[in-house]
């Protein structure tokens, strides 16, 4: 036990962070604290026993979180948003090994008979809009059908009056989904600097320019986002708006999330799963605000 105790003491925790619709400020605090400590967030709940819930989830989201929590590996810890308060080790309900039905089969777009899988994206998923669930019908990795649901909503206004930071947050998520962690991290740092108010906007605008140039001119990113449901246009729009907002110019308000959710099924149908994630990230619906703006 001595060795195990030492290893546990030496181990760097890697929390899985879930945000409720009203958890934006908590989530930003958690991300900043993780960065300060040199920790990384986990990509999936299987990879860790530490769960951090930001904000106050409604009943539906709380139930989803409870399911995830029940299946996380030991040693389990449920940390508060300051990563200090710890509650864990409680006896867990026995894992119910539900009998999963066999997949149905149907013709796919190429006329092959393939398994049809019904799988959800969210609401407990890394780099995903808080409170959103998209139910997918998949054949292989191609989306045959999609339905978007707002599982958790709030009528807060965290991003009100913070146009640059709000878009930097969306940009960071989009870049992470695009598999470019280093650029996403840079966007998150710029976001936090913008929010802290410690750095004048003029200096931030200067720091943003080379970053925007690097992201905007990346040929690989351009290639990977071209003709993917408006992702390229959204990315260019984000870069333009962030630059404008940091320079003190007016930027158009973010569209209300109801419109994004209505548009999702048509946009996602027929895409590859990776493209679907990019499309959702590019729309970046903020379910923490009023549905119709």
């Amino acid at each position, binding site marked *: 036990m001595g060795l195990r105790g030492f290893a546990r003491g*030496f181990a760097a925790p890697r929390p899985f962070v879930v945000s409720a619709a009203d958890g934006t400020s908590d989530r930003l605090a958690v991300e900043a604290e993780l960065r300060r400590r*040199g920790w990384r967030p986990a990509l999936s709940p299987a990879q860790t026993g530490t769960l951090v819930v930001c904000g106050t989830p409604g009943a539906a989201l709380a139930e989803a979180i409870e399911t995830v929590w029940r299946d996380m590996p030991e040693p389990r810890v449920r940390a508060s948003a300051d990563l200090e308060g710890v509650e864990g080790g409680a006896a867990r309900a026995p894992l119910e090994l539900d009998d999963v039905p066999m997949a149905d089969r149907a013709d796919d777009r190429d006329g092959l008979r393939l398994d049809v899988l019904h799988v959800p994206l969210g609401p407990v998923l890394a780099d995903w809009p808080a409170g959103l669930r998209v139910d997918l019908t998949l054949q292989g990795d191609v989306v045959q059908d999609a339905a978007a649901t707002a599982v958790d909503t709030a009528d807060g206004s965290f991003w009100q009056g913070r146009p640059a930071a709000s878009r930097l947050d969306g940009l960071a998520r989009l870049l992470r989904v695009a598999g*470019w962690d280093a650029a996403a991290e840079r966007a998150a740092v710029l976001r936090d600097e913008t929010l802290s108010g410690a750095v004048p906007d003029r200096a931030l605008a200067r720091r943003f320019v080379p970053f925007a140039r690097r992201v905007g001119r990346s040929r690989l990113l351009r290639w990977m986002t071209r003709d993917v449901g408006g992702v390229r246009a959204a990315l260019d729009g984000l870069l333009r708006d962030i630059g404008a907002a940091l320079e003190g110019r007016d930027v158009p308000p973010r569209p209300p999330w109801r419109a994004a959710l209505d548009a999702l099924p048509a946009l996602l149908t027929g895409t590859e799963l990776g*493209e679907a*994630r990019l499309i959702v990230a590019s729309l970046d619906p903020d379910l923490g605000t009023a549905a119709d703006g």
Partner: protein
Amino acid sequence: MVEVLVLGALAVAAATLSGTLAGRPAAAPFREAARLLTLQRRRTVRADVLLTRIGVVSLPMAAALAALVVPFGGRVALSTSVGVVWFNAMEVVAWASVWLVGWGVNSAYALVGGYRFVAQGLAYELPHMFALITASLAAHSLDLRVIGGAQHGLWYAVWMPVAFAVYLVSTLAMTFWGPFGHPLGADLAGGAALELSGPDLLVFLAGRYGLLAVSAGVAVPLFLGGGAGPLLPGWSWSLVKTCAVLSLLVWTRHRLPVLRMDRFMTAAWTVLIPATLLQMLVVGIVVV
């Protein structure tokens, strides 16, 4: 056997370098390893445990077995005349590893990660093989030490740059690293490795770093003149060059976004394969 241990140490160094490039402390990979070692193993519903375990264990095994034929100067753990073939065969084991892990855990997103890797492997194995064969063709040998010794001051990287570039690119694809990390992508919450927890994940990821280190080590005799260099003994030149290639491979992860195979497959078949074939033709005409 020292050579294998050196490559193992380089794999650990690669993990450290990757963390450092991302701004994490140098001890981060060791603390992560300690975390994974003390984390419970977790099973999914109706998982094929045997297949999953075979997938997890075979990845570091393949890396270790491939390391046997990697020469450092004139020294090599296992002296064989078909080192290139052996190395390539071990790389192909990685296909099975990732696919078995993605398939075995019975999770839709892990399965999609597996699909992605099979597509990636199909796109990259051919250009990769052609790049290996081009170097062998020029040296008239499949023995990595002979290939390294046949370059007489003019590195193959210089006079067959296409083969060298394709080797580096396809190596990233075979080790699903950096811009080719889509099979384990963040958009699938970890892809093929999504459901692996604790020691399983540690062993699997260690295997990937091992493959990365071995692939960097093989690039040296194939394209960078093996242990040739002034003053220092051969093994140290091999080590220096391996470190340089490995650093380059690790660095790509922080410089480039991920490539999706649904888009990149076309480039592999219409650009990389013809380019490597042309390169091979040129080399063939020159040496014959």
